[in-house]
């Protein structure tokens, strides 16, 4: 942390500010119609409208809740299965080819399947987010475990650690940076899958807002939904960073 905190925030705000300026210029230059690219002001007033109608909070809350629960479930499973595959050659041989294949099933393709298996309601939505969060965590964790310095593993073995204690005292700590970046990717992909999840018989949430505004041609609401997703994505990422940093240094 050589750059002081305020400076970092200012630096981080540079690019968004630049984007905002370019956006305003592009919108007001008349290259695009307002329906194609509404100026930032209009998006702001769309925000105001949502706030006035009291809907914004609900959209934000339900989406955040879905992502958090889904991410918790998906990443937990990713850690478990990734740990298993990283530890055991046999498990890896059986599990990993299938998982790698399923990984390529796009979020949109899950929608009809989950609808069929789990119906409507919150469950299929949360499950879809969990599916999204699972894969990056699984991949990163299993890859990281497979590449830990064998010298460190030997220390664990030399001091009688095997199985779960070995995982807890040597493997996971050694793979921590990779696991954290896997968790962050998982969280990000959870947000990505949220939109598909909110295609499932949904009438609230940011993903719904996005799709719905696309269908009804409300470009201002659409941009607002995108920005809100980005902001929430960044916020949750930062939060995860802080939480995990604390967890690691303790």
């Amino acid at each position: 942390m050589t750059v002081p905190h305020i400076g970092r925030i200012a630096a981080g705000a540079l690019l968004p500010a630049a984007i905002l300026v370019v956006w305003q210029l592009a919108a007001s230059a008349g290259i695009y119609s307002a329906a194609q690219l509404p100026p930032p002001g209009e998006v702001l007033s769309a925000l105001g409208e949502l706030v006035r109608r009291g809907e914004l909070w609900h959209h934000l809350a339900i989406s955040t809740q879905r992502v958090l629960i889904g991410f918790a479930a998906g990443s937990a499973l990713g850690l478990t299965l990734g740990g298993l595959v990283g530890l055991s050659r046999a498990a890896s041989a059986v599990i990993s080819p299938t998982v790698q294949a399923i990984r390529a099933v796009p979020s949109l393709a899950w929608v009809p399947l989950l609808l069929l298996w789990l119906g409507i309601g919150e469950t299929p939505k949360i499950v879809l987010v969990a599916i999204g969060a699972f894969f990056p965590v699984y991949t990163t964790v299993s890859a990281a475990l497979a590449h830990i310095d064998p010298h460190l593993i030997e220390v664990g073995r030399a001091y009688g650690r095997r199985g779960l204690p070995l995982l807890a005292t040597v493997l996971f700590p050694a793979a921590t940076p990779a696991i954290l970046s896997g968790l962050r990717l998982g969280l990000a992909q959870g947000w990505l899958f949220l939109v598909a999840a909110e295609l499932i018989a949904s009438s609230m949430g940011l993903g719904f807002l996005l799709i719905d505004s696309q269908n009804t041609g409300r470009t201002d609401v659409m941009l607002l939904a995108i920005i809100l997703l980005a902001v929430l994505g960044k916020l949750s990422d930062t939060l995860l960073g802080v939480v995990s940093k604390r967890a690691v240094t303790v």
Partner: protein
Amino acid sequence: VQGEDAPAESTDGAKTVALRLDYAYYNPASLVLRQQKWLETELAGKGVTVSWQLSAGSNKANEALRAEAIDVGSTAGAAALVARANGSPIKTIDVFSQPEWAAIVVPKDSTVSSVAQLKGKKIAATKGTDPYFFLLQALDEAGLKPADVTVTNLQHADGKTALERGDVDAWAGLDPLMATSEVDAGSKLIYRNVGFNSYGVLNAREKFLAEHPDLAQAVVNAYEKARQWIKDNPDQAVALYAKEAKISEPVAKAVLTERTRLDIDPVPGAAQKAVFEKILPVLVADANVKSEADARTAIDTLFEPKYATARTVS
């Protein structure tokens, strides 16, 4: 946060029946029904709970029907046919509108003013949807073959963008996007024909019909009442539609009062079949259905007119 789980089953052991309907922006009557809560009131005494799911499009309504997530769903007629042909056990029990939701649109400054002039041009449309079938029928009527134009497959909203950007010469558009484009970007409708639209129909699952014919009848009756209400209260209906579909009132007014005919015979039958016959070859050619035989069987078995015939308005 309270999510979208279906309302909890009553815990006192009494068997409550759930009636699960969809609502859609392309089905104004459903919006009215959902807001006025007529079905809820009427059925509450019989221990029936009513739940509503938004359908973003015919495809989504069909998906939900297939997954048995809803009991009655609203789609375009052609979409219902395709679903039935591909094995979804659904029956059309009611026609809720004859919409003119599709038309051929060109940009503001376009010199194209008739379908015949589209020869050799690039046209955006979403395959398998009403605007696409509309386009094919319009071409056919103008003496053009599908091969005479380039059809660019784009989702409805994206077709609008492509048209306004000038990436395509014309767009087989869908309301309310089409009306929005007219109002905002000055796009022009060069060809309209209400007869080429495949109606808005209400479909129910066969199993649902077998188990709860009374509920199906109640739904059909309620739709009749909603159509009536819209006719009687056009201003309120426009306001409601604008708010629900998140469009401006002028657009809502144009769509609802000018381009949607609600005073139609709700009994599914010959009128719809006529449209189906025209689009059938297209469905086969595009592999939207597995075989022509399937599609023919579907045309013959799709309709269940008895509920609409027996409708009453309470």
